[in-house]
């Protein structure tokens, strides 16, 4: 292809745009961080960073699953309810010890994911509706299993939520590990590649012999399990199972994180680190507004603006 001189201008603009699409979120995080460093008292403190990371960890984990689902041109509204369900399942099985309880919780998450996946992949219901039904039903189920908040003192579980290894809170460590795992899954594995292709062109993927149904099913199961992990961590941090309010509106936070992180809702693309950054950005924003004691209404309006700005920067040009 010929590259003539007058084309330069266009190309440079294109590069700038590409850069913004790629690193806009990172820039925003840095900017907000800088702002706080200057204007927020006691911000530059190890404890503070720990707090922010610990609080963002569950959101990050849920967002990972959400990112995968969105990559397949789907969406999973059930994640918040899954967290609630795991909370009550943990409480129910804690009698057998922490590990069995956690195992059961993850299983529960997997099952809900499988249900959603089956609705989407096998029956062919649109993801948003399928998972909407789960959003409503599963939270109800969580409350049926455990009518009200229940505290626990199981040392293992409490430790999981409050201890740290080598200065890194376990919660954060787990999140980091999962980020790495998912990043690897998306970049290097057949599954990851197929997932993205299916999101990019379902029909073509089918005709190319990709196991569309299996991949979709697996993706929703993964999302369910990740939500369950988040649910367990949040529960262990709270030192109580609270199926009523745990994970309320989590689906929205997760979707926000994913999209702000530069993953298009139209599917065909998954940005893992971007998603993490997206979650971090929203967390920092929340923290900033709380630390400066601004009212709820401000928080929401500010979030609205940030979301728009971030997505605008990262949007697909044509």
């Amino acid at each position, binding site marked *: 292809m010929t590259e003539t001189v007058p084309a330069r201008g266009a190309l440079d603009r294109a590069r700038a745009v590409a850069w913004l699409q790629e690193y806009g979120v990172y820039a925003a995080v840095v900017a907000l961080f800088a702002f706080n460093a200057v204007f927020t008292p006691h911000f530059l403190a190890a404890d503070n960073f720990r707090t922010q990371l610990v609080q963002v960890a569950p959101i990050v984990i849920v967002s990972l699953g959400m990112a995968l689902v969105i990559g397949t041109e789907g*969406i999973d*509204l059930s994640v918040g309810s899954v967290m609630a369900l795991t909370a009550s399942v943990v409480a129910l099985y804690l009698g057998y010890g922490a590990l069995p309880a956690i195992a059961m919780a993850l299983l529960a998450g997997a099952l809900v994911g499988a249900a959603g996946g089956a*609705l989407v992949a096998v*029956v*062919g*219901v*649109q993801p*948003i*509706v*399928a998972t*909407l*039904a*789960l*959003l*409503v*039903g*599963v*939270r*109800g*189920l*969580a*409350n*049926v299993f455990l*009518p009200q908040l229940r505290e626990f003192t199981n040392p293992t579980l409490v430790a999981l939520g409050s201890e740290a290894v080598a200065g890194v809170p376990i919660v954060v460590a787990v999140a980091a590990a999962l980020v790495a795992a998912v990043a690897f899954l998306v970049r290097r594995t057949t599954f990851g590649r197929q997932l993205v292709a299916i999101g990019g062109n379902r029909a073509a993927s089918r005709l190319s012999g990709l196991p569309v149904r299996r991949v979709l099913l697996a993706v929703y199961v993964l999302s369910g399990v990740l939500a369950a992990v988040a649910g367990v961590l949040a529960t262990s941090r709270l030192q109580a199972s609270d199926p009523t309010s745990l994970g309320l509106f989590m689906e*929205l936070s997760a*979707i*926000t994180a994913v*999209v702000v992180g530069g993953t*298009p*809702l*139209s599917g065909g693309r998954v940005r893992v680190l971007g998603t993490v950054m997206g979650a971090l950005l929203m967390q920092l924003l929340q923290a900033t507004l709380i630390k400066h004691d601004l*009212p*709820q*209404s*401000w*928080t*929401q*309006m500010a*979030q*609205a*603006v940030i*979301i*728009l700005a971030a*997505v*605008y920067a990262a*949007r*697909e040009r*044509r």
Partner: protein
Amino acid sequence: MTAQTARPAPPATTAPTSRERAGRLFQRHGALIVLCALLAAGTFAFDSFTTPANLGNIATASSFLAIIAIGMTFVIVSGGIDLSVGSLFALGGVLAAYGSRHGTLAALALPVAVCGLFGLVQGVIIARTRMAPFIVTLAGLLGARGLMLSLTDEGATTYLVEDEAFAAIGQGTLAGVGHPFLVMLVILAAAAVLLQRTGFGQNVYAIGGNEDAAALMGVPVTRIKIMVYLMSGLLAGLAGALNAARLSSGVTILGIGLELDVIAAVVIGGTLLTGGAGGLGGTIAGALLLGVIQNLINQIPGLSSSFQQVVSGVFLAAVVITHRILSGVRHGTT
């Protein structure tokens, strides 16, 4: 050559199989069918169900959801989605109550104007920047609720409707039917004509079906999209105002999660979230359906509040699955 020129189109598409016809029927009238079935079941099971009072309540209560769902139908047919309606519903209510101090007109104009503007802005952003409607209106959801809270000092202030005439719009009845329901019917009629019998409606379907093609066919995509979101915001605000008139106060805790109910109503009504297909009749049936379900669940004695949720979840799933299975033939599973 005439031999083939006269060749009729392959039967595949002209003579639909009985299964296809069933599918098409369910696609169009599924919600209505289920609705009738439930009404019958309700009448049969509970004697306190098919009383004029009870049905009247359901109708009136569902009107607000229905009005919003009408706007949402336009949005979804155009291939978009509007998550901001719940917040706009609440905002509209507050503004109406506030405006009612300055008379009926203000009470109606203020919410419609502000929420309309809100929808307009969202529409402009979506249409001009091609950002995903889901995310833009998600921001709208937050923004509108934030605005509503800041107007009511974090929800502490509840403005009361001062204007009798305005309150009457929401509370009065005509021949035993609540005004809101009548208003809804009027809006429905107008919207149906707009969607089915005007160029605007055709364009909405075209954009939802294939946006790029529509653009190349000369459809003013940007303008149509903006108008669609404008309508949605406008109707959400109007519904909020009506509701405020009915409650004669601008309640600040309304509309949380309402957008999901509205979407459910539209989808149950047979409109595909993928856009380009669907209609208003189903939407209304869907809205009423949700009302009836809630009412029936209440009729069942001794059903714990948590179980009620499970039931509604299962029910929603059941409806969409039947839908999908029966109408699957049409937008092929293959």
